[in-house]
């Protein structure tokens, strides 16, 4: 079955999105993690733009512009600034067994694809297969938050999860109303600011951003 080039292109972008999430899952350096997050935002912007162009939904152009501004420029810049101020720019995280995490990741992808299959049957529109990929990237970001110990990588995982949700929204339902999107964008921005403040608090209290310290309950 020949598909139009638009759909092929969006499929390719979806595949790249999934690849980036896997790269984040296996990335040890915090700096590269943030760069990957910026790339993810860029892919998201392009895919939103293509969906807007192909379906003629003009409000999606705004959301593409919003994504570009927030997720490619502002948030990575904020995170870069944070790691510079916290002096963790070159930190390397010791991850537990990357191949195992990857295998769990593949299992999650299969699970997500199966889970999304009945939903995709219901969805109309050009991009049915993409719900599975969006769901997979949400689950993988969740896995990333579970396997990381540094607070910053957990926050990047959280933001990546939001990216996955956003991708599901644009590709499956041609986007949410603009008001909702603006609200979410603002939420994410504020959340990042608050996380930034938390980072400083955590470091001041525990002398480290490793959140395993927070599991010890001692009053001395």
């Amino acid at each position, binding site marked *: 079955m020949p598909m139009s*080039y638009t759909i092929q292109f969006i499929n390719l972008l979806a*595949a790249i999105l999934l690849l980036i999430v896997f790269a984040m899952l296996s990335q040890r350096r915090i700096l590269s993690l943030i760069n990957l997050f910026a790339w993810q935002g860029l892919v998201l912007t392009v895919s939103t733009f293509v969906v807007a162009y192909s379906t003629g939904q003009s409000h999606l152009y705004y959301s593409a512009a919003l994504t570009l501004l927030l997720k490619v420029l502002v948030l990575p810049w904020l995170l870069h600034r944070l790691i510079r101020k916290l002096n963790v720019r070159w930190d390397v995280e010791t991850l537990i067994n*990357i191949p195992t995490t990857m295998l769990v*990741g593949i299992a999650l992808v299969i699970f997500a694809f199966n889970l999304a299959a009945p939903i995709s049957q219901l969805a109309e529109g050009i991009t049915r297969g993409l719900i599975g990929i969006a769901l997979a990237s949400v689950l993988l970001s969740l896995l990333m938050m579970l396997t990381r110990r540094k607070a910053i990588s957990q926050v990047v995982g959280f933001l990546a999860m939001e990216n996955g949700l956003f991708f599901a929204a644009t590709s499956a339902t041609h986007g949410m109303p603009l008001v909702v999107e603006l609200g979410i964008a603002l939420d994410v921005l504020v959340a990042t600011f608050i996380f930034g403040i938390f980072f400083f608090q955590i470091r001041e209290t525990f002398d480290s951003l490793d959140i395993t310290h927070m599991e010890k309950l001692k009053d001395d």
Partner: protein
Amino acid sequence: MENINLTLGILFQLCQSLLVVLLAPLLTGWVNQCRAWLQNRSGPGLLQPFRTLRKLFHKDAVIAYNASPLFRITPYILFGCMWLAAAIIPIIAVDLPFSPAADVIALVGVFALARVFIALAAMDIGTAFGTLGARREMLVSFLAEPALLMVLFTASLISQSTQLPRIVEALAHHQFVLYPSLAFAGLAFVIVLLAENARIPVDNPGTHLELTMIHEAMILEYSARHLALIEWASSLKLLAYISLGIALFFPHGIAEVGQWGALPLAIAVLLVKLTLAGAGLALLETLLAKMRIFRAPEFLGTAFLLAVLGLLIHFLLGA
């Protein structure tokens, strides 16, 4: 008509077989030359592998007194396997008379056969280095092989056939389609290519340092014509892998059997592709650093992951 077709096919087959044997050392020379340029050295020139081969063929072979016949015949088996592989892969034309002999899975088997023999021969003499190299080679290849098979399965699923000519035709002669699954498979294939051909992140073909060498450790005991054949087989293997990559991912411009008119163009396109691939390989090797042997499983695990992802994406998106 049948007879003419068969004769033409055999002519094309001979043409390709001769071409690959002569091109293979040239490709190795080109990769080395590019590496030299990238490292600000002037480099030995494109024809250096031929000079090395001539020198080696003129020397007298020295063989350990406890070597078994296996040790002597391995270079010939190795060369034969690699030549057969390079003859099966559609390099200048599809539908060669040899190509029904083996589909992609059998092709992986041919590579595996060569590997088993070189590993056995390396252990045959009983030196520490040979055994060490053979073990490391087996470690790397047992991780690379499933990834390679997954890559080939992805391509087979798209074209509904495991025969290489069918795969090439499905990709080359239909309208242009973007295949995300093939993009993943392509990335995985590059990693497998680096690992299987003893290239830099996994092995360094230019080193004789005991801690790092894999392929070189296995062939330390060989000399003269045996060594020449092994070196030539390695070049052929590199050429076979790169042509397999070209056939799977960029098959455009390949000729059909019997079309003499398309042949010069096909060879020109092939040369351009090989030049680009060789330069790309040299660039990759210069950019990457040799990794510890214990990091190799992780590296090849990534290849497997990418290939499996390609397969899954093919099932989900149907592309």
